[in-house]
């Protein structure tokens, strides 16, 4: 059984001129990048564009990669930046709508009526209302499941800053859910009544 080349070996080969070896790296990480982009709030039909941009940027900057941290950390950093750039570019199209009064006053039974797709859409909507600098650490910590030190590396910020941003992001999320989306709270609106 042939041994899979490591990331570092592949990067060295690409830098040495074997460009076609880059395809193995792309195939290895394309799911991670696409999923991260989706969780950062990129629409499903645009995830491919963002992933393409990420891997092209990675290729252009491959010589700058330092192997002291995992390639995935670097990929996350580039994905987060690419996703934010993409969203900024599309801001005029995807401006969040005002919350409809029916959603704001969703009754206790609304929780049961949600399909999982609808919950995901509403959660994306809630996250979209949290400012970018709070939302990104929140997504990395509670959706991607990254430890604090890795988030600090991805966002190139001190751990203390990440901690305080996470604290505020969680408080904002709770505030938004309690005020506008009570049925998204754990246990739905029943828990509140």
């Amino acid at each position, binding site marked *: 059984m042939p041994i899979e080349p490591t990331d570092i070996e592949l990067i060295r080969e690409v830098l040495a001129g074997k*460009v*076609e070896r*880059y*395809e193995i790296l*792309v*195939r290895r990480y*394309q*799911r991670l*990048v*696409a*999923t991260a*982009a*989706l*969780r950062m709030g990129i629409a*499903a039909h645009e*995830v*491919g564009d963002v*992933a*393409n941009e990420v*891997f*092209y940027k990675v*290729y*252009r900057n491959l010589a700058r990669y330092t192997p002291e941290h995992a390639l995935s950390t670097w990929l996350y950093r580039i994905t987060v930046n690419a996703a934010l750039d993409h969203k900024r570019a599309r801001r005029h199209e995807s401006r969040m709508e005002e919350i409809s009064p029916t959603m704001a006053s969703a009754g206790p039974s609304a929780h049961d009526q949600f399909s*999982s797709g609808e*919950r*995901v859409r509403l*959660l*994306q909507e809630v*996250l979209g209302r949290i400012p970018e600098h709070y939302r990104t650490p*929140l997504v990395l*910590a*509670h*959706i991607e*499941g990254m430890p604090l030190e890795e988030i600090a590396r991805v966002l190139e910020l001190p751990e203390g800053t990440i901690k*305080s941003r996470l*604290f*505020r992001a*969680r*408080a*904002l*999320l*709770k*505030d938004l*859910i309690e005020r506008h989306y009570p049925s*998204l*709270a*754990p246990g739905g609106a029943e828990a509140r009544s």
Partner: protein
Amino acid sequence: MMKRLLIRLGLSRDPGPRWVDDVLAPLRETRADADVAASVMMRVHASESPGIVVIATGSRFPLVAALIGAPLLLGAIAALVASGDGFFDLWNTALALGHVAWVMVASVVEFCGNILSSSAPVARAVARVFETIAPILRGAGLIAAAWGVLSILFSFVVFAQARRNSSAGPHGGLR
């Protein structure tokens, strides 16, 4: 508004990581599967090729110029040497070219020196003016800051008074 301020000040209650984990659980289950390998590699190859073509085209021009120019130059030199005083003509031409180059360098150096010597007193004068007016600028800054604080206090008092004097209607009001 108040709650937002409390969150910003860090005084609002953090629901804790577990609560957030529970809320965001559906998003953790989302997956995307984009096959971008082929399109990325196409883009990579496309970005490589024009670069190589540009470099090749760029390096071709000096090569062609050298190939045409070198025989012409060598021919001219050979013709000069072959005619009677050719060698001395060549020597004189080289001396004249050297002299022109020397005059050009000397002119550039003199020009730069003139610019520096004329701009130095101006720079010194500007620095002296700034040194003189620095306390005035500091004083003006302090006065502006004090004026700003006073105007904030004044508007605060005016608004508080207006709020006290206004009547609240049945559907709410300022109160």
